């Protein structure tokens, strides 16, 4: 009986640890880092919420007023318990410090800029579309005006190598979001911001504008296509020529 319970618990824990709890797995190195942090946070959240819900449920059931009891009967009139109060302040502090540290380490990694990226894309958002320029390869890709059902322009990235994205906006604030990469960054007019994407999966991924930018915000989409580095070279030669 006891052993069965342990096995079930272990099975639950291992499956929980391998599950992503609804988060995309992360198609880039940065995205996977973020997803690992998510797993830590979800497990902590489940633990904390589990304890708190259990305490609430226990109090409600154990200390409910029963049928036929004197309606004016009082509960035990205690006001405080200082050691307990210290504990329930200190334990959250410890949890929060741990989570903050984990988050800080992950943030350092995912926002780090590689000193020597494989290639660079200058992405410019405008109402309502995207322009992707590869200055080294001399390629420019501009979306046609966005419309429902249009996949939008295609951003091509080499697999396994860091690509620097230099993000700008031409008019209002937009945001570059590839849900499968677990990452977004705002495109703010008058400012330039950069980040690296290091794809770990081949394929096509949906990209959207995540900051409301007016009438056609919802259809301001683009596609990211991740290809082998050799294929990227070939594509770049063709697109430039």
């Amino acid at each position, binding site marked *: 009986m006891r052993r069965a319970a342990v096995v079930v618990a272990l099975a639950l824990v291992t499956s929980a640890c391998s599950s992503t709890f609804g988060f995309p797995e992360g198609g880039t190195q940065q995205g996977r880092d973020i997803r690992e942090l998510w797993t830590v946070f979800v497990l902590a959240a489940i633990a904390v919420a589990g304890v708190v819900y259990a305490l*609430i449920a226990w109090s409600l059931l154990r200390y*409910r007023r029963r049928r036929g009891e004197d309606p004016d009967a*009082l509960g035990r*009139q205690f*006001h405080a318990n200082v050691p307990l109060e210290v504990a329930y*302040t200190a334990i959250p502090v410890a949890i*929060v410090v741990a989570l903050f540290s984990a988050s800080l380490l992950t943030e350092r990694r995912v926002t780090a800029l590689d000193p020597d990226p494989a290639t660079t894309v200058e992405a410019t958002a405008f109402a309502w579309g995207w322009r992707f320029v590869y200055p080294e390869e001399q390629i420019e890709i501009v979306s046609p005006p966005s419309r429902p059902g249009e996949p939008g322009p295609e951003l091509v990235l080499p697999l396994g190598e860091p690509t620097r994205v230099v993000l700008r906006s031409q008019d209002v604030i937009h945001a570059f979001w590839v849900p499968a990469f677990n990452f977004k960054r705002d495109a703010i007019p008058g400012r330039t*911001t950069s980040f690296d994407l290091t794809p770990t999966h081949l394929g096509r991924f949906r990209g959207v504008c*995540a900051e*409301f930018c007016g009438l056609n915000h919802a259809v301001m989409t683009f596609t990211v296509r991740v290809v082998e580095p050799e294929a990227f070279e070939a594509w770049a030669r063709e697109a430039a020529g």
Partner: protein
Amino acid sequence: MSARGAVGWLTTTDHKRIGILYCLTAFGFFLVGGALAGLIRAELASPGQQVVAIGTYNELFTIHGTVMIFLFLAPFGAGLINYLVPLQIGAPDMAFPRLNAASYWTYASGGLLVLLSSFATAGTGAAMGWYAYPPLSGPRFSPGVGVDLWIGGIALVAISSLLTGVNVLTTVFLMRAPGMTMWRLPVFTWNAVVTVVLGLLAFPPAVAAFALLFLDRRLGGSAFDPAGGGDPIVYQHLFWFLGHPEVYILILPFFGVITEVIPVFSRKPLFGYPGFVLATLAIGALSIGVWAHHMFTTGAVDNPFFSAMTFTIAVPTGVKFFNWIGTMWGGRIRWSAAPMMFAIAFLLNFLIGGVTGIMLAAPPLDYHLNDSYFLVSHFHYTMMGGGAFGVFAAIYFWFPKMTGRMLSERVGRLVAVGMFVGFNLTFWPQFVVGLRGMPRRVPDYPPGIGFDAPNLVSTLGVVVMSLAVLLFVWDWWRSLRRGPSASDDPWGGDSLEWTTSSPPPEHNFSTLPAIRSHRPAFDQRHPELVR
């Protein structure tokens, strides 16, 4: 003597009537905002369909958000503060009754302007989202008068809450009953104090932001438009310096509400009163220092600083949960009473809002979650699942005091269960679609990428929730005229308002009991237990 009828209500300076006016107006805005939410959910029920035009959809969520935040939840809190604070501290009225009336009318006119900003502007309604980021809200991209009216309306609401703030602080600091030291203030009043302090600190920068935005729009300024040398990030700093404290302005009064409700229905004193008060004060201070967690994805702010501050604020919030649990522990809980059911629902929902808030406090997670439906769901778990459930707890708890009549307990239970189920059906699926990559503020989404089913469930949840709310409105209307009459103290309350008649007389009290703890009404009923 106060005048009767409509004139009496229009000219009243009685804090109780003003409080009721606030609550009624705010609840009306809740119904308006809820109807708009219904339209939003109808549009999103399935992909490809068009219930409203795209431009209209953008106006819908803008006005829904604005109404719910600035015209429903905060003013309902202000109404409770108006009604309860003088009663709880044993004062005859607010310190400045005429100013108080002026605050109410300022808020009401602000609300009117906000409604006009979308409904009376023929195609140029405000459609820039409730935080009105420039340049989108600037003259080049939102030329019509809609945004101007919106700015005017919000500015009026801001002024109203500054006036209320001064009034409430003066009242609490100078008009407490003899013996009611600050450390015997009822917990609702403590939360009210911190709420208005936050308003006083946070509204001025926002008013400045709105004024600059208005100058940009109308007088050719360019404070926020990079085309003229301005910086949109500065607007975001000014706005969120209000915007984040605002969420605590929204929730603190309802922390206060359930902290009054839980002890009464557990037949116990609040567990750890001093710790609870200190936690409230800490939340007040910390909430001023977290604003840029709304800007993690800009890449233009000090993420670790704001992330650290935001994590820290989870601690005092967590402490409150243990105060509430400690209060129920060892009690004799009457949890079938409607106010208590709403308070319990508050606890269950708000906890989810809290743990998802911790996730959003981690910048790397925010890179995925920000501006997705996950975020939408998170803040509805706090503001709807917490705040709005707190509103209902307050209504069921104080309705007898305000009107002298009881609401139906049976119907109340049904409303609580219906709202709880409907609420969770509506918003849990939004976590799922958010994680899968559905951005907020979109009128449509492509089929077949995992968004369809959760969106449909979410819309069905709204149907359940709406039925529960309509049931409440019906019961309210009926009980107002025919409900059984309420005694002075129908629940066995703790604070001073339960020692006067229901409803209280013009200047509240004919005699006051001696005040020896933060539960004077309880002490009066149980003199044998006074320490």
